[in-house]
Every structure is written in structure tokens, then in C-alpha cells.
């Protein structure tokens, strides 16, 4: 069975997008997960973007570019927080395909992500494993 994802080779740049996470977006994100742990942080991190918010919005670019089919399942995730990002800072996320394989009716993709700020500092590294149903040509 072939599908459009079979043409993706290891190393392919899946997405390379810049985005700004403003305060309303951070609030919307934290409200959606009922997370008030920011109150535990001291003032040196007062205006930071929660790292999981950055990872979620970075994944959004990957999901969008890949046009993943409904029914795709996220099977594992690795994240490494390197530097703090500040609210309103312009961030860029580059995502590359690391692995592309099939088993049964599923395609398995491993995608690496690197989020940097305007100064070129690495904010976060990530690796996602997703499985896509192969009935979507």
C-alpha cells in the first residue's frame, strides 16, 4: 500500500516556521489544561512561555504541514528544555523527518524538532513518534 507519506525520506524538512506566542495565547493554553503551576515560579521566570505551550504550538506546524489524517496517534514524545523563551519573543521551529516505516495498516513517523529564538539560541529540542492510518492515500 502506498500513500503520499511514502515519499518522505529521512532528513526531509517537514516544517520551518516562525511564530510569536503572546500573553493571551499563553493564558488560553494554561486555561485549557487547568495549569496554575506558574504561581510556583519565582520572578526571574515571570514572563516565560511554558515550555509545553511551545512544544504544543511547534507540533501544530508539523501537523499542519504533514496534513496528517484523522485517526493519527501520538505514541511517544521526548522534550528537552534548553533555554527559557519570553512572552512575545519570535520563535522558529524546524522539524525534520528522522524515520519513516510501515507495519500492518500503519505508517510510523519519527520527527525531530528544534525551536530557536531570534538570537539563534536553542529553546527546546524534541522528538515525536506518530502512527498514521494508511487508508488515507
Amino acid at each position, binding site marked *: 500500500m502506498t500513500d503520499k507519506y511514502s515519499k518522505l525520506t529521512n532528513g526531509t524538512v517537514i516544517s520551518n516556521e516562525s511564530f510569536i506566542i503572546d500573553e493571551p495565547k499563553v493564558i488560553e493554553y494554561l486555561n*485549557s489544561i487547568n495549569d496554575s503551576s506558574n504561581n510556583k*515560579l519565582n520572578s526571574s521566570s515571570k514572563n516565560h512561555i511554558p515550555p509545553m505551550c511551545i512544544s504544543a504550538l511547534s507540533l501544530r506546524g508539523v*501537523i499542519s504541514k504533514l496534513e*496528517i489524517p484523522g485517526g493519527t496517534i501520538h505514541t511517544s*514524545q521526548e522534550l*528537552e528544555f534548553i533555554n527559557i523563551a519570553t512572552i512575545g519573543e519570535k520563535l522558529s521551529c524546524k522539524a525534520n523527518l528522522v524515520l519513516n516505516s510501515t507495519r500492518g495498516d500503519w505508517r510510523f513517523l519519527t520527527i525531530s524538532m528544534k525551536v530557536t529564538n531570534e538570537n539563534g539560541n536553542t529553546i527546546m529540542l524534541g522528538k515525536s513518534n506518530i502512527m498514521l492510518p494508511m487508508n488515507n492515500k
Partner: protein
Amino acid sequence: MNENDQLIIVEKYITKEKILEYANASGDFNPIHINNDFAQKSQFGQVIAHGMMIAASISEMMTINFKNDWIKSGKLKLKFKSPVFDKEKIIVSGEINKIKILENGKEITSSVQVKKESGEIVITGNASVIQNIN
């Protein structure tokens, strides 16, 4: 903190409404999360929460336990084992496995997990954080 110490736990109640809120906040509109008709025909039979939505509760627990050190140096390695459905409660917990002394601090590695009230495991993994000596 010492090896074998238990981390302060986090408990959450997941609802369809919160899943939709997370979809809007994250931009992940996979129909398995938000479309009842689609989800009913899937292997799950109903909508499921985003894996990253549940994973965020682990990061919340780590923030509660390690505060600024977590957001500055956290590392997570997670496996999504089973889905979370509407009206399910999750319990997020962790235990310190290893404390490695570094030149200017220590690296604390914990096993972390999310489970349901039934005991079903949702996420397992490891989280590590570096605590610097100021």
C-alpha cells in the same frame, strides 16, 4: 530531595469541553479529539484527549516540584500507553530514581506516570532536571 522520594502528585478531571479548549489552544484539530462521529468509528469508540494535553500535566507536576529548574533544564521522555476519555480522572505521579552529583549542582531523574482511577496506565516515562548550586 532524595532517591525514592515521591513527587507531589497532580490530579485532573478531563472533559470533552477541556479537550476542545486544548484543541483550540494548540491548533490540533485531529477529529479523533473533537469529532464524535469520527471518533465513534475509530478503534477508541469515542473522542480521546490529546497526548500532549495529558503530557502537560506531567510538566505541571515537575514545575510544582522543581519550580524554575524545571522550565530551565527539564527533559522528558514519554510513552503514550492508552487514551484518556471524557469524564475521566487522571493521577500524575513520580518518584526520584537517581541523583547524580554534577560540578555545579545535581541532576535528578524521576520515573513519571499518568494513570486513571482504575489504575490503567496512560503515560509512562522519565523526567530529569538539573538543580544548580547558587
